């Protein structure tokens, strides 16, 4: 039996993976099995087809249905040469430079096979956790240096300790999978490509803090991920990984998937809890912290999906092995997501400390258009635009903060020199206006004013005076907002103004660099 692997990750489906799988099924003949996997994260090569050979898995991509007859004729099934042949994915420069810990299995295993999961190191972390006991698990996560991958970078171990020490009749683990940041898809790739890893991480969290119920809050924009994860939950329950007696330990942990309804602000942890409770997604004032008064008023661990999915490997390999990667107070690895106008787009998991320039120029290979890079937006819609002059910034929480930026959830969106930064600043304000929960006046009203002021600046109306108004407005947003939606919108706006003043010279929002 020859095995072919074709991703069913939605990014591969979006570029025709199902049509390729169908052509292969029809044309490859008897004795060929097609396994649908997640994505390796080399998205620019999707749909990427792999064949199992004695030398390992050999990849081809990007494959179209029209390529299939030629590929088969050339000897795809034995890994033979062809212009689309990539070789072993792990030998590809994009992969060689990575440190795959959290994403070690993604794109390799059948996401809905627990046997495959076990065969690739799955459940080692949970098995150790059960043997260690709750306090030791919390200590291990603390020692790993893991910080929240959702954006704020709060130490995960400390959060868990607070919940572990709280006394209550009921506690919850909530996974924040409301991945709303543009340019990010790491949570989605785990849900689709390695869902048991998240389940394992949440079960460990439950055991560690004494919680018996978990929720995964995903997004309606991720219908494929939600289907896969729902199936994974059924399989996990059947196998006793979740339920009244986790792997025969006598401990119980129930897990449910919930889906949001198109509100970016519900990614903010307290708005997310409100939403889970069935309310409007309004941000709560802190304190009290969710660790003390969280879901339904009970102590709650709320963590980003990548934070939780990194726990199994931390326990399996040990805190030290994880903490050995990284720089300063940023330990371990980060799944960096390269998107937009880049030649090599996808997911790049690397130890902290790599420079932004290395990521853009070497890993991402510059722009897809071949034109010069003008700006990169890091950390989603609330993150700053960095010009190439800041490409020496190390990928590290503190180094980014020092440059008025944030790494956020790890998204990097590349723009070439045809981008008009006034339009980007305007969009940041517009997005804030659309997604504001409405609790704070600067965010609710100020963002709409921001759009108007930028329009005036771009039209050349009282430019200097309106620039001052814009600066002022940003200060008000920064200091008068309850959460980072209002509070951080000034980052993309002011970084655009500061680094690209020429784009705000009043020559209109559509003024573009002439195309070659």
């Amino acid at each position, binding site marked *: 039996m020859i095995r072919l692997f074709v991703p069913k990750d939605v*990014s591969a489906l979006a570029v025709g993976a199902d049509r390729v799988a169908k052509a292969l099924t029809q044309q490859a003949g008897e004795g060929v099995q097609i396994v649908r996997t997640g994505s390796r994260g080399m998205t620019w090569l999707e749909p990427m087809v792999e064949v199992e050979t004695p030398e390992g898995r050999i990849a081809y991509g990007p494959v179209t249905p029209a390529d299939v007859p030629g590929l088969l004729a050339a000897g795809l099934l034995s890994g033979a040469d062809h212009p689309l042949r990539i070789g072993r994915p792990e030998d590809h420069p994009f992969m060689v430079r990575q440190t795959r810990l959290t994403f070690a299995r993604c794109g390799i295993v059948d996401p809905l096979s627990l046997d495959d999961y076990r065969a690739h190191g799955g459940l080692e972390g949970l098995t150790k956790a059960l043997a260690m006991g709750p306090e030791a698990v919390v200590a291990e996560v603390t020692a790993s240096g893991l910080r929240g991958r959702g954006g704020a970078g709060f130490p995960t171990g400390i959060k868990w300790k607070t919940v572990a020490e709280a006394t209550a009749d009921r506690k919850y683990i909530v996974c924040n999978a409301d991945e709303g940041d543009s340019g990010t898809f790491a949570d989605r790739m785990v849900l689709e490509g390695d869902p048991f890893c998240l389940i394992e991480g949440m079960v460990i969290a439950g055991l560690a803090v004494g919680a018996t119920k978990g929720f995964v809050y995903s997004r309606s924009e*991720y219908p494929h991920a939600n289907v896969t994860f729902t199936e994974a939950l059924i399989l996990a329950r059947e196998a006793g990984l979740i339920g009244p007696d986790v792997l025969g330990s006598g401990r119980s942990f129930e897990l449910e998937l919930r889906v949001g309804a198109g509100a970016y602000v519900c990614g903010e942890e307290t708005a997310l809890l409100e939403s889970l409770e069935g309310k409007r997604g309004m941000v709560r004032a802190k304190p009290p912290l969710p660790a003390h008064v969280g879901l339904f008023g009970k102590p709650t661990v709320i963590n980003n999906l990548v934070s939780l999915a990194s726990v199994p490997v931390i326990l399996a390999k040990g805190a030290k092995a994880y903490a050995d990667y990284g720089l300063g107070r940023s330990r371990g690895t980060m799944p960096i997501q390269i998107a937009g106008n880049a030649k090599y787009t996808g997911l790049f998991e690397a130890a902290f400390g790599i420079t932004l320039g290395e990521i853009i120029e070497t890993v991402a290979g510059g722009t897809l258009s071949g034109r010069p890079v003008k700006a990169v937006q890091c950390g989603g819609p609330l993150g700053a635009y960095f010009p190439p002059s800041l490409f020496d910034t190390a990928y590290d929480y503190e180094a980014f903060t020092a440059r008025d930026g944030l790494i956020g959830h790890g998204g990097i969106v590349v723009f070439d020199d045809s981008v008009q930064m006034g339009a980007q600043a305007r969009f940041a304000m517009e997005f804030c206006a659309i997604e504001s929960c409405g609790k704070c006046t600067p965010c609710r009203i100020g963002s709409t004013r921001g759009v108007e002021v930028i329009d005036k600046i771009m039209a050349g109306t009282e430019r200097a005076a309106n620039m001052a108004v814009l600066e002022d407005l940003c200060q008000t947003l920064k200091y008068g907002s309850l959460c980072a939606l209002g509070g951080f919108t000034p980052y993309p706006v002011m970084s655009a103004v500061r680094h690209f003043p020429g784009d705000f010279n009043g020559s209109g929002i559509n003024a573009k660099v002439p195309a070659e």
Partner: protein
Amino acid sequence: MASKTTNLVADWDPNRAAEIISAHLGLEGPALPILHGLQAAFGCVPSEAIPMVAKALNRSRAEIHGVVTFYHDFREAPAGKTVVKLCRAEACQAVGGREAASFLLASLGIGWGETTPDGAVTVEAVYCLGLCAAAPAALVNGQPHGRLDGMSLIEAVAEETQP
């Protein structure tokens, strides 16, 4: 091979609504699952359903109305037969998303959030589909499409709307 997945929506039926509501009452925090269930059945959250949900959850009608209006997904009337969820966010902007969107909207003669007069197509703005490494991207009746430009976007929509 994209299967035709045109939204099939049922006419208002209070018994069906009651069933959907009661099916979720055992959940912790059942409101969103109920509203999603109603919209899946009726193509929107019908105004007739709001007092029923309020009563079942022991909350005021105003509160439930407030929840429905807070979330961008919940509709007060059904959308067109084909729903295009088109990403407006930054990674898509970086590779021509704005231009592709303008091209589609102009060719349909509608704006964001609007439905063509014949009820065939609704175009909704979404902010990131997680397809940012294969941008610009859209979901057309739930089917994902990436690396779009104006022409391929129109083709993707046509594929779903042709009988």
